[in-house]
């Protein structure tokens, strides 16, 4: 499988400040890649460099084999971009916008079909300034598809949208992948990445701190699976004395870390044997969000400590 995007030691400095401090990753063609990170981590800068909207300071970047900065015109014919907070000419309707893009690209898009696809057919003739946030974003998505792009860049496509609109956009992203297009997605919503992405990279302070499939990242950086009971600290003390597993108690809950699935049986029989009151049990796994929060949190703590030491 070929790589649609190759990033090799990418650095972007603004004055003395490094927004992106040497990152590497590749995105295989036909996959969905989610690029995550807190605000100001370097997400948008990286995305704009890949889209050819911003030059880089150092490193090598190839999108579809092209240098995005020097070969921007050729690249732009083959990619589709929806920026964050998509804005367009206020008095123009989605249908007219698609026709306009079609003329600019010299393609012959089917406005009705495209609008149907992004679930905006009923607003085909409404002026852009009368559309809701979600409808504007859908217009952007439809425009990004007018040139039949090989790679789609979606920069926080669902930020600020209601759950229905978000699901509509997710469905489009899935269909893009099904058609063999590559999707480069940035998002704040970790569940979105977990649901849609084949590969994830987390960027923080301009560096990639975790990369892989969502499962790999959780396995590498997450805590083990736990068995959780609603019970008091007395039960936790009892379990600690009986089990070789680590036990934590907080907020009326007790959690037993499981090294193997069968540990759950041992924990459960110990609980039953204790004769102490308990209710409701469940196994809990770290989500990508838990991992993200912890990784970012740890790094910021580390940064603060080292700054404090210096």
């Amino acid at each position, binding site marked *: 499988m070929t790589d649609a995007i190759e990033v090799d030691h990418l650095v972007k400095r603004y004055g003395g400040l490094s927004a992106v401090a040497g990152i590497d990753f590749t995105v295989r063609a036909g996959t969905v890649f989610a690029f995550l990170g807190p605000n100001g981590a370097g997400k948008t800068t990286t995305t704009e460099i890949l889209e050819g909207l*911003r030059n880089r300071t150092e490193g090598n970047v190839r999108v579809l084999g092209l240098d995005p900065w020097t070969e921007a015109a050729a690249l732009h014919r083959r990619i589709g971009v929806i920026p964050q*907070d998509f804005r367009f000419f206020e008095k123009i309707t989605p249908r007219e916008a698609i026709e*306009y893009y079609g*003329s*600019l690209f010299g393609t012959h898009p089917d406005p009705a079909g495209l609008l149907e696809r992004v679930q905006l057919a009923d607003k085909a003739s409404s002026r852009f300034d009368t559309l809701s946030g979600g409808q504007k974003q859908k217009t952007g998505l439809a425009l990004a598809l007018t040139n039949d792009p090989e790679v789609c860049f979606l920069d926080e496509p669902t930020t600020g949208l209601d759950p229905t609109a978000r699901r509509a956009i997710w469905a489009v992203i899935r269909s893009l992948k099904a058609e063999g297009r590559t999707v480069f997605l940035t998002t704040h919503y970790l569940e979105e990445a977990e649901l849609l992405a084949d590969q994830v990279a987390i960027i923080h302070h301009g560096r990639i701190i975790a990369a892989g499939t969502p499962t790999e990242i959780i396995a590498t950086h997450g805590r083990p699976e736990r068995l959780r009971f609603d019970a008091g600290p007395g039960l936790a003390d009892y379990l600690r004395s009986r089990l070789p597993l680590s036990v934590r108690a907080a907020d009326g809950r007790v959690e037993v870390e499981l090294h193997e699935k069968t540990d759950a049986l041992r924990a459960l029989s110990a609980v039953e044997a204790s004769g102490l009151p308990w209710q409701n049990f469940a196994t809990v796994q770290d989500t990508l969000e838990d991992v993200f929060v912890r990784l970012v949190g740890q790094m910021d703590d580390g940064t603060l400590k080292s700054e404090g030491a210096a």
Partner: protein
Amino acid sequence: MRPARIVADLKVVTRSYLRNPVALFFSLIFPIILIALFGLIFSGSGTSPVTLQVVDLDHGSPEAGVSESFLSALNNTSAVKVVVVNQTEENFAAWLGQNDDPVGLVIPAGFGANYTAHRPTTVLVYTDPEDAADSGVVLGAVQGVANYYNLHAANGTEIVTLSQANVGSQVFTYIDYLIPGLIGFSILTSPMFSMVDVAASYRKEGIFRQLSLTPLTRAEWLTSHFVWYMAITFVTAGIMIGAGLVLFGARVNVTLGLVPFLIVGPLFFVSLGMLAGSVAKTPESAALIGNIITFPMMFLSGTFFPVSDFPAGLQSFAHILPLYYVIDGMNQVMLFSNTMRALTDLLIVLVGAVVVFLLAIRFFTWRDE
């Protein structure tokens, strides 16, 4: 440059504009308001004769024919319009003071008899200190007619006679100067104000960024805007010329010679507006830069008043303003039929427009380093 992309962009510009009632009002109704306003305020002065109120105290005397022919000679100068009023000599000054045209003449009793007998006689002219121009016209006319009568009384012969001609072939009124001036005004203001705003706000809203991801080039984008403002200019020029001809009886030449100015002028100011909007960092500073460029030109390029009426210092300042050459060129075409000077003006504007267009393309960037 691909015509298809320019046409596509032009379609969007046109629709955006036509769906914006305020913009439409300003470009179509505003020119009519301007020309009506300035036409009404200023077209009164100029060539229409000054009304002269006359009390003829010699009326009814045996030699009344002299005063009658004197007054009709005054009327024939076409500088004044004689209106004989029935007032006493004592009340005349007070009456004039309340009149709209407070310029008067008193022919004394015995005027005809004295003239026939070659005895000195004095006519009294009341002038209006608040209207030096009208007063001067009346004094000159009365003096001229009186001299003529004196010459005849002395059986003299006119040695120097006068025949009148204006510079150019016809007599121009204020409205004739106003039409090219106001066309120039709209060539300047409508692209300048909106291009400065468009340049700054499209960048802020990310619309340029959006367009940079398409094959549309900056030159194509700027060209489509130029074509749009050129169309606006043709419409407003048409409205102004029509209103001037119909409402104010303007006598301007409407020839094809005007067309190059209606093309090159918008090219210059669309590009200049884009340049000003591009060098500014924020919409606010863009508006400020736009105003600094626009306002001096708006008043000092011969828009509302001919530059030749300005003090010498201001005249030389006007000569560095690009709009001066647009308006002067249109004056040459529409009023003076001076083709050579019109061509020189056109050349200056054309060279300027090409330079500013290229500078605008150079400084106006879709994307950041």
